[in-house]
């Protein structure tokens, strides 16, 4: 994140140097606070405080005096909730599922997005506006609605796709135990490929054309220009889309929750978020808080780690 931050501020630095010389110091502290507080106060209240509260809750346990029917009281339990999370096979099940999902879905989606962006950036294609809009359109569709739409396309009674596949002798079962994870992955891919493609495409469009001219003079093929010049230059946006995809994958809730309404092969603990919600609905808020904290930490470590790793390797 710091890399992103410095890169974002680099442009600001020069104008500021000039400014400081000019009038020495900026507006008064009170004025600055008046600009920053309207965002920062809700940010603290609805971002930082809940994080702190979740951390605190996750350290508590509910105990009972005198057996099952005794009075319950809440007390400090140290890391007890976390021990329980890590001993919970359903937790590991959900992590395993989401890990498998992410390892397959994210690369496939980003590869397709990258190929589309590169093709849209060549003179090979016509109808570019049409292709661009058709791919981006799913971004405007809420995850719940997308999952509802696809669930009709998966459902054996209604789906024209199932009919078509039966017509060529296949017996697809999109909601079966082995397939349902990939049916969910398909909804995510459908939703987000175009969005990621556009981020990469926008980055491609701001590369100066002279660079290609020079490469062509050196005898580089279109293929080489695409993979050796364009892709490395837009690497920061590929990293950005990867990080957003990792965050998205770990947050997965709406799509599997909708498919659960028509498939018995999705449990109430299918993803980590579904597990957290299920546990919270069972009134075990402390355990749910611990799960939320673990999800947030995993997200943080993975996205931050990925950013670090790639920025070191590619010298971004």
């Amino acid at each position, binding site marked *: 994140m710091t890399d992103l931050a410095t890169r974002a501020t680099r442009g600001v630095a020069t104008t500021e140097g000039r400014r400081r010389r000019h009038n020495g110091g900026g507006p008064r502290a009170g004025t600055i606070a008046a600009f920053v507080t309207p965002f920062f106060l809700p*940010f603290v209240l609805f971002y930082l405080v809940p994080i702190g509260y979740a951390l605190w809750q996750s350290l508590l346990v509910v105990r009972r005096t005198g057996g099952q029917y005794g009075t319950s009281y809440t007390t400090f339990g140290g890391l007890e909730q976390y021990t329980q999370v890590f001993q919970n096979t359903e937790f590991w099940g959900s992590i395993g599922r989401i890990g498998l999902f992410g390892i397959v879905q994210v690369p496939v989606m980003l590869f397709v997005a990258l190929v589309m962006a590169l093709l849209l950036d060549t003179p090979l294609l*016509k109808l570019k506006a049409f292709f661009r809009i058709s791919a981006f359109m799913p971004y405007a569709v809420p995850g*719940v609605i997308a999952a509802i739409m696809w669930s009709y396309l998966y459902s054996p009674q209604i789906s024209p796709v199932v009919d078509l596949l039966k017509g060529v002798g296949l017996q697809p079962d999109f909601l079966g135990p082995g397939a349902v994870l990939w049916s969910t992955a398909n909804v995510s891919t459908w939703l987000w490929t175009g969005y990621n493609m556009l981020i990469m495409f926008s980055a491609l469009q701001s590369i100066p054309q002279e660079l290609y001219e020079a490469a062509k003079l050196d005898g580089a093929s279109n293929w080489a220009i695409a993979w050796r010049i364009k892709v490395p230059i837009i690497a920061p946006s590929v990293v950005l889309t990867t990080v957003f995809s990792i965050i998205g994958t770990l947050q997965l809730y709406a799509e599997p929750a909708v498919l659960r309404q028509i498939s018995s092969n999705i449990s109430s603990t299918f993803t980590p978020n579904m597990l957290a919600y299920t546990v919270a609905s069972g009134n075990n808020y402390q355990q749910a808080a611990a799960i939320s904290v673990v999800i*947030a930490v995993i997200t943080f470590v993975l996205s931050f780690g990925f950013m670090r790793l790639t920025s070191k390797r590619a010298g971004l």
Partner: protein
Amino acid sequence: MSDQTPIRESRVSRTAATALMFLLAVYFLLPVYFLVVAATKPQGDLASTNGLAFSHFDLFANLDTLFTRSDGIFGRWALNSVLYAVLGAAVGTLISALCGYALAKFPFRGREFLFSVILGGILVPTTALALPLFLLFSATGLVNTYLAVFLPSIVSPFGVYLARIFAASAVPQEILESARLDGAGEFRTFFSVAFKLMTPSLVTIFLFQFVAIWNNFFLPMVMLQKESLFPITLGLYQWNGQTARAPLLQESVITGSLVSIVPVILVFILLQRFWRTGLAAGSLR
């Protein structure tokens, strides 16, 4: 590019590229096309006719059923979604703009620290925030109110990040200096000068936040029990869960889904040039 490659190869790659893009376009458009077709059919035709071909045209009857079902609750949900998304994105954009502008244009101690904390907020999964927020809000009596969904929605760390980039590039320091020399206060300068220069980028931030709130589902689900406060996503989710017991709801779920996505898609097509510059700025710096 083609002037250096042999014509035949270029024709082959041209055809291959176009074919691939067409296949992908079919993939992206198919579910929406299916939805449009299904929304025009009477319930009975859903399972019995080909899903990709129109049958009896019943769209208006379906819309009528949709909006009159359960005392017109769907209209209420639509209104709620508009309210949450338009107001939330408007307030959210304004406070992001103020903060991003200050981070870009005012030198002050702790500025980079503040910015890093906000950027860290982008990495926090919002679904992980929803459960602790529920606990806090139930302690303060906010659960099951409009505010429970509205208040957390106005915070967009990504909006501040974009606003800072936009302010840095769109608002020249010289203009601010001359406004100050003319004796304008910082707020006056912001609203009368900077705000106008930043308008295209503010539309981008508004759009992204609007879509994020419109699409949100987990937060309202955690916060709301009262059906009358639901946004469309939560309402349709609930109806969809009831279709096993009440199969006639299916047609309303489909028509309702179509009603919920068409306005947003139209807005996106109309405002293309705004979100495209937004994506470019967000991805590059």
